[in-house]
């Protein structure tokens, strides 16, 4: 029973923290650009405002346009409930492993791309086309990173991977782990639409990937999509943090362990968020047809990670 409550609370914490994560990255980037910037809780104010606006829907759109924001938001929340955040998941209640997470996110992207095509706007079509290209090319890297992790842990269940890494700390510094972490970090940037793959703050439609698909959305639908995107970023960063650097995560359900788990979770997220912000300040966006080169590089990293884990057994 306590496990159910734990999962619910964890999901709630994730959903609540996601806009703050995005706001923190924006605040960090602003400071690095020499400006004061908006407060880290600005995205909450934006979401509240969006919920109060009307939704403008195109004549050419169909029911798919109305359903997609809910699918995107829903899949992001379900994925947040599957991923270990504050506490490592307990066995009997796991409804999904790493593959389930990957495919649930693919479900969200599928519907978002269809919604981009639905309005008949060429921007939406272009965004859908580019997004599906990037997602298709990140799939093998994600799968290979999963294989690298699962090889050493013997399973794709999050709980077992975390337990294995905690039990053998030296493995965390092995080449397999480090390379898989690097590959997963590049995939995070690609899937969540951050530089150098996609600029989340661009206004030029020809440079957009994710933004182009949401150009037609407004009001509460846009709020759901933005929240879903923020949750996706939180989930990816949490995966990178908790699977590769799991110390601090609560393995028991005592209040002290949970408190430490929460604090370490926020600390790890903050460090990764600073890394993302620093990287976004340092690099420029890649030309679209150079992105596959970056993704193949991440695939090669993941492949080497798998091979080294294989040969180390």
């Amino acid at each position, binding site marked *: 029973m306590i496990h159910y409550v734990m999962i619910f609370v964890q999901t709630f914490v994730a959903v609540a923290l996601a806009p703050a994560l995005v706001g923190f990255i924006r605040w960090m980037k*602003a*400071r*690095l*650009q*020499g*400006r*004061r*910037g*908006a407060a880290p809780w*600005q995205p909450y*104010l*934006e979401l*509240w*405002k969006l919920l*109060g*606006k*009307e*939704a*403008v829907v195109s004549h050419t759109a169909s029911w798919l346009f109305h359903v997609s924001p809910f699918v995107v938001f829903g899949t992001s929340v379900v994925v947040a409930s599957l991923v270990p955040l504050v506490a490592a998941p307990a066995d009997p209640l796991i409804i999904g492993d790493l593959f389930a997470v990957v495919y649930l996110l693919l479900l969200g992207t599928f519907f978002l791309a269809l919604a981009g095509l639905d309005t008949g706007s060429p921007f939406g079509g272009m965004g859908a086309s580019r997004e599906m290209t990037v997602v298709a090319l990140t799939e093998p890297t994600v799968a290979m990173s999963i294989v690298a992790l699962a090889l050493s842990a013997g399973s794709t269940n999050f709980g077992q991977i975390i337990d294995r890494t905690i039990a053998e700390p030296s493995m965390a510094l092995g080449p397999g782990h480090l390379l898989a972490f690097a590959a997963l970090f590049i995939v995070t940037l690609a899937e969540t639409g951050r530089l150098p793959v996609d600029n989340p703050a*661009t*206004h030029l*439609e020809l440079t*957009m990937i994710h*933004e182009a698909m949401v*150009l*037609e*959305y*407004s*009001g509460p639908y*846009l709020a759901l999509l933005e929240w879903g995107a923020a949750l996706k970023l939180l989930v990816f960063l949490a995966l990178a943090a908790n699977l590769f650097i799991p110390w601090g995560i609560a393995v028991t359900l005592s209040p002290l362990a949970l408190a430490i788990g929460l604090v370490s979770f926020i600390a790890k997220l903050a460090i990764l968020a600073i890394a993302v912000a*620093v990287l976004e*300040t*340092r690099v420029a966006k890649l030309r679209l047809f150079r992105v596959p080169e970056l993704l193949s590089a991440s695939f090669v990293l993941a492949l080497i990670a798998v091979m080294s884990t294989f040969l180390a057994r």
Partner: protein
Amino acid sequence: MLLFSKIWKAGIATEVLQVGDPAAVEIGRALEQRIKKLLGRALAIREVDAGSCNGCELEINGLTSPIYDMERFGMHFVASPRHADLLLVTGPVTRNMEIPLRRTYEAMPAPKFVVAVGDCAKTCGVFKGSYAVVGPVDRIIPVDVSIAGCPPEPSDILRGILEAVDRSAEKRGQSITVAAGPVPSR
């Protein structure tokens, strides 16, 4: 690494917002209180150039610079009118931009308001009477705030927007503007 050492040395460049010329800002229609409350702290702006000479655009560009930094007031520019609450219009409305301007306004979800920036947007400015010009912005779409100047100061533009949503006097009693005076040197 050179980049980060420069960032460290430069620090935060944002200045406190100046009062500037109060006459530049003219509030034509006051917004409803509930709209001010909704849009007050998180404002999304879409900018439309309805045939301007780009002088006003350069000043509006300055709004996102570290000196004026409009993001600290919760405002940011967006890529699509569907995401926007405020329409910032510059330029005398030329014939070719009349329909796009109207469509941009219609594409925005309610509640929304319009700020006309520059003399051209207010009265067609130097282009008044030209064969290519239809009329000032309030001939095409309803305008809530006008900011005069050719081009207006970025601080005037900022203040105009803030006054429209009633944020020129901060809730905590602290004013975010200071009286006009010499700009403190860095």
